[in-house]
């Protein structure tokens, strides 16, 4: 199957500091692909680079048949890249409903359908539609950030640390929602520190260390990898 997202030779730097080295990565339509690594490995820089945020990037990024070189962040989103960033970044002074509606560029009928889908996936949000972003709990903000990215009508969702700061119960719930998103036909690139949870739902994975991909493969291959076992799975 042709890759939906195809990255080759990607490097990213902030000033003189190189954050990512020669990254090659792909995501096929409908896949969940995990990007694993410790804090500071470069996961957030990678997802931001795909969205055109932050670092200076060189290399090839293709989304479908479109090269993302010189494409603005807004146009990447309009092309079908949905983004739920680290820290959620919900709009604090806007209601849940406004946070969702502001992300849709579609006509009224399509927007209403997407809103219905998001509410079906995250029923908590439906009951909180008039609450302001800052009034939500961490888990609710995470649901809102993912739901908001869904409202853009993405073909590929970039999820940065969706379980960070959540209780184990809530983190498990969020992972379940990611599988539900896959069933809706959306591919997911999932950056996660929680390797056990990420590999439980991913089709494939990449492991980042100090800005380089050190290994990749299916969840079974990664679980068996010595470096992954030592670094993330307790031996």
């Amino acid at each position, binding site marked *: 199957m042709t890759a939906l997202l195809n990255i080759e030779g990607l490097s990213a730097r902030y000033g003189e500091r190189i954050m990512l080295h020669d990254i090659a990565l792909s995501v096929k339509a409908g896949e969940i692909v995990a990007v694993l690594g410790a804090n500071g490995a470069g996961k957030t820089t990678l997802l931001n680079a795909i969205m055109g945020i932050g670092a200076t990037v060189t290399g090839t990024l293709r989304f479908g048949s479109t090269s993302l070189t010189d494409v*603005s962040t807004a146009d990447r*989103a309009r092309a079908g890249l949905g*983004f739920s960033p680290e820290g959620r970044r919900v709009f*604090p002074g806007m209601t849940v409903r406004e946070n969702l509606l502001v992300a849709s560029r579609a006509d009224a009928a399509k927007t209403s359908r997407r809103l219905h889908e998001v509410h079906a996936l995250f029923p908590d949000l439906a009951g909180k539609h008039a609450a302001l972003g800052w009034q939500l709990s961490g888990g609710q903000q995470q649901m809102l950030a993912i739901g908001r990215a869904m409202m853009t009508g993405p073909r590929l969702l970039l999820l940065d640390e969706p379980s960070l700061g959540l209780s184990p119960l809530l983190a498990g719930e969020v992972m379940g929602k990611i599988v539900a998103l896959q069933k809706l036909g959306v591919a997911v690139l999932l950056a996660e520190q929680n390797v056990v949870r990420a590999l439980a739902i991913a089709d494939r994975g990449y492991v980042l260390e100090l800005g380089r991909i050190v290994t990749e493969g299916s969840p079974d291959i990664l679980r068996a990898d010595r470096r992954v076992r030592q670094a993330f799975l307790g031996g």
Partner: protein
Amino acid sequence: MALQILLNALALGAAYALLAFGFVLIVNATSAVNFAQGDMVMAGGYVAIAVASIAPMPGIALLPFVLVAMIVVGLLSSLVAYFPLKSRPPVSVFVSTIALGIILQNTVNVLAGAAPRAAPALFGDGQLAMGGASIAIQSIAVIGVAALLIAGQWWLFARTAIGRALRATAQDRVMAEALGIRANRMIALTFGLAAALSGAAGLLLANTFFVSPSDGTNYIIKAYISVTIGGWGSLTGAALGALLVALFEVAYPQIPILIGLTESSTAVTQVVFSQTTGTILLYVAVLIILFVRPQGIFGELAQRRA
């Protein structure tokens, strides 16, 4: 008499509120202070005078001309004074907007002269008898028009897709872009809307208080004081601050009349309740607010919004 004083203060406060809203919109959208915002008030007054000189009409009919012209001026000001410098340290935008304001002042000076001019009244110069008092129609009209503009601005920001995009851009520009919002267009539009509101304030003020090319400096200080009192980033705070500034300017010197001291007014009373003393007390109040509540009266809400 008390009613007339209250309405005059409300009218001035409403016009200042439009200016302060424009100031806050740009602060929220860009984190930059637009020091040309006071000059937009002056420019709005002169647009009204210029159009009225070609086709005489009441002020209310001039309002659409002022709004459209000032949206264009605001868009152009963003292209000249903000976008080329937005990646530079904030002081660059600070200085560029001061430069833009001075250019506007001197351009108007060259085109219209330095002498104060008056714009037409909104509906007429007459008085209205209310409860035994004589109320200037212009005061009531200014309050009404400002209220309509504030309501229109609220509707735009709260009820429309473009308003949501403007607010999202103001709250988190990078995130707004990651959702497909073209943030630069939203920021340019914010400059346009801010200039339109300030320009409308210029039309409302230029009848009673006249307008001259150098008025912008005075107005930007009023806006700055209003948002400092109300809380940076808060529109409600800006409106409240604007009203307080107007009360000090208009109502404070009238206190002897309001409490019946006119007949027995002494030299001391005249000094204590003079406009100069009112100005001193206003700035003392600003200092107290800065010391006691540096975030302003509504600053906490603004922090959450930011």
